[in-house]
């Protein structure tokens, strides 16, 4: 059946038909017709943010914590340009977003009209795909296609730019079932010969390791289950990237912790010493590999990824398998079982002995202090006091606190950890926590933050108050840009150029000014009671936890170093970064 309705009504109808119940947005001149259509309906809840960047990060938090597609609605010009950071973030971390932007009327495009920007031009490199819709009859089809592209294959952000006259005009609505999707259908099934090669390697490897990434979580809960089955039944160790935390339970003995620049010693040493590396949905990011010519020199490498452009991009692999993780792991498990579940048991057993010696190094130990709160201590206590909550969701900002959170907090389920990995966007965490809390209203949502990052999108506290979202902002306040300060200490002769947070607000008063609860804590003995008070309060809380100002984040693979050249603590930092490494970020 073909119906004729206005473009604005088509937008709302298409969202409803896509199963959207929540959108994050901010109105403006060029989207007023769509906001009018939203006003007239009850099926979609609109969360009014305070800045368009906040809308995109909130949608990312919503998407990451639910497995659904996040939806953003903003106006033309500045509305669209403010959303660029969030879209780039989602592109780097493969988060499905549909961003709808208003545009000046078609007859004014190109005239430098008020609030006009070349939105599709600006967002071409930061979206998986984007569309400018000039014809109301095409609008519903494009929106349905946009959802398909955002969620299919390697997920990512897409943008639909809708001129105001297209929103006013009447046009035909096309149902989802009528939309042609043949144009985009990424390969899901892995190559059989490659899967046979993988099983051959699993059966014979002496020092195997699973190196898993965000792709496992993106593939879905079945993929997570299959990874757990395969790892548990083979007794192979598992490490994960920042984005993949939670796909494999941290409570398992086979869990080595996160790998990479601030990964655990045992994880990086195992990556360096393995003879079989099975990369499941990770992308050999430079934060993971360290120095490439010394990266895991003696291993056969298998790479399972749905995106062919990820294969051999930085690291050449022996067995590439292009396909969906769920499908590939299912076929691998089936074949391996049918061939008698063989592994090199004695080899793997002595591999575990080697790993045990690395674990004994206890790389996350730190010097406790009875006077000052160590950030590691604060996070250890946060873990101890909140880990019993199976409905705990953690977001972070970007910097030292983010790495400490990844090291000291344990994740046993996927979709519980929202962080900006690829782009490293300061200001991500607060809006992301709002998106998570919208999706899970009664759950415990904590944003582990640094004070500098947190200030970047602090206006979103207003959103938390307006929508009664009891997000807990746990700020580790060192009055520094901690990671910048750490690099300046290690790399730039302790010249701390612009890395102080001067003129900080009083966070307790700030919380109160927003209508939230503010708590301050500056003694180690008060950390527990502060966390308990934060959790007990039914509403948004800002915790200003004053921590050691000069703590560095370890272990660390310095720029230009290899996995087996980790710095374990302050005493080992002299002369660690070479001139070549110094130019890297």
């Amino acid at each position, binding site marked *: 059946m073909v119906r004729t309705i206005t473009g604005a009504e088509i937008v709302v109808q298409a969202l409803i038909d896509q199963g959207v119940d929540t959108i994050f947005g901010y109105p403006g001149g060029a989207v007023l017709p769509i906001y009018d259509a939203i006003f007239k309906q009850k099926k979609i809840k609109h969360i009014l943010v305070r800045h368009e960047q906040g809308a995109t990060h909130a949608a990312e938090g919503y998407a990451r914590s639910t497995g659904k597609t996040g939806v953003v609605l903003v106006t033309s010009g500045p509305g669209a340009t403010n959303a660029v950071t969030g879209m780039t973030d989602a592109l780097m971390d493969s988060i499905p977003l549909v961003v709808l932007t208003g545009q000046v009327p078609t007859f004014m495009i190109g005239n430098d009209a008020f609030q006009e920007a070349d939105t*599709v*031009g600006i967002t*071409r*490199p930061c979206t*998986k*795909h984007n569309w*400018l819709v000039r014809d109301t009859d095409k609008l519903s089809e494009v929106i349905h296609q946009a959802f398909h*592209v955002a969620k299919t*294959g*390697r997920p990512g952000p897409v943008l639909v730019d809708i001129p105001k006259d297209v929103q006013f005009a009447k046009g035909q609505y096309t149902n989802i079932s009528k939309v042609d999707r043949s*144009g*985009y259908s*990424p390969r899901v099934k892995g190559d059989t010969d490659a899967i046979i090669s993988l099983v051959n390697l699993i059966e014979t490897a002496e020092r195997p390791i699973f190196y898993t990434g965000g792709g496992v979580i993106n593939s879905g809960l079945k993929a997570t289950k299959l990874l757990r089955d395969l790892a548990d039944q083979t007794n192979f160790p598992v490490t994960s990237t920042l984005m993949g935390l939670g796909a494999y339970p941290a409570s398992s003995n086979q869990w080595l912790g996160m790998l990479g620049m601030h990964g655990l010693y045992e994880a990086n040493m195992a990556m360096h010493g393995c003879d079989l590396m099975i990369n499941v949905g990770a992308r050999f990011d*430079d934060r993971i*590999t360290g*120095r*490439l*010519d*010394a990266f895991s020199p003696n291993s056969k490498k298998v790479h399972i990824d749905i*995106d*062919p*452009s990820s*294969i*051999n*991009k*930085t690291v*050449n692999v022996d067995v590439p398998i292009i396909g969906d993780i769920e499908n590939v792991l299912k076929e691998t498990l089936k074949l391996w079982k049918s061939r008698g579940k063989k592994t090199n048991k004695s080899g793997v057993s002595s591999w575990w002995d080697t790993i045990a010696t690395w674990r004994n190094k206890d790389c996350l130990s730190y010097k406790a202090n009875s006077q000052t709160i160590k950030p590691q201590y604060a996070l250890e206590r946060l873990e101890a006091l909140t880990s019993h909550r199976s409905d705990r969701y953690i977001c972070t900002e970007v910097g030292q606190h983010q790495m400490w959170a990844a090291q000291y907090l344990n994740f046993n389920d996927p979709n519980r950890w929202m962080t900006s990995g690829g782009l490293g966007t300061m200001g991500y965490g607060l809006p992301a926590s709002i998106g998570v809390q919208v999706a899970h209203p009664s759950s415990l949502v904590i944003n582990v933050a640094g004070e500098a990052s947190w200030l970047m999108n602090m206006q979103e506290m207003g959103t938390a108050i307006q929508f009664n979202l009891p997000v807990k902002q746990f700020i580790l306040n060192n009055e520094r840009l901690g990671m910048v300060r750490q690099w300046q*200490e*290690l*790399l*730039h*002769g*302790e010249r701390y150029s612009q890395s102080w947070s001067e003129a900080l607000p009083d966070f307790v008063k700030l919380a109160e000014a927003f209508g939230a609860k503010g708590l301050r804590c500056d003694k180690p003995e008060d950390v527990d009671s502060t966390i308990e008070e934060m959790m007990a309060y039914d509403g948004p809380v800002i915790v200003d936890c004053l921590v050691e100002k*000069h703590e560095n984040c370890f272990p660390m693979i310095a*720029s*230009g*170093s290899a996995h087996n050249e980790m710095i374990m603590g*302050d005493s080992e*930092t*002299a*002369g660690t*970064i*070479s*001139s*070549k*490494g*110094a*130019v*890297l970020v």
Partner: protein
Amino acid sequence: MNSLKIKKGTSKHSAYDLRDPNSEIIETHTLAVIVTNESGVLARVIGLFSGRGYNIHSLTVAEIDHDSNKSRITIVTTGTPQVLTQIKAQLSRMIPVFDVHDLTEEGGTVERELALFSVTGKGNKRVEALRLADIFRANVVDTTLDSFIFELTGTSEKVDAFLDLMRPLGLTEIARTGIAALARGNN
């Protein structure tokens, strides 16, 4: 805290050195990219090349099938084998791209380019230009008493050679189309 002591030469290689032009052989490949003929598709392809630091030696684009709304973009690009593989993978995953053919890898190509040369001169130079045009089988498509426009079709090398010959004979302007290419037959 210790001050930094820089140890020289400990790092030979980093993620940023991947495309070190001296480390591997640079190859030239001709790619045929079949795309949906929609607004902005060329900008997407060019943006991919500039954004990721790939080279474009020549690029031509035109609609090839009006009914199915398809265009063919022919790109001559250079890079190490790893970079060329990346270029193809990155092109393939773009939504409006139907197909990417590496014509060089698929057994060689027939490549042609069309060029127009404006040559101004009198007397012997004019006669010599016309004689050379005849040798190169270039057509005269416009003429006045003191100028010619020659039209030449051929490989880029042939166009280059003709260009070199015309320069001392009064070449004033040149327009080249860039390369159009097809894979050779299967024998």
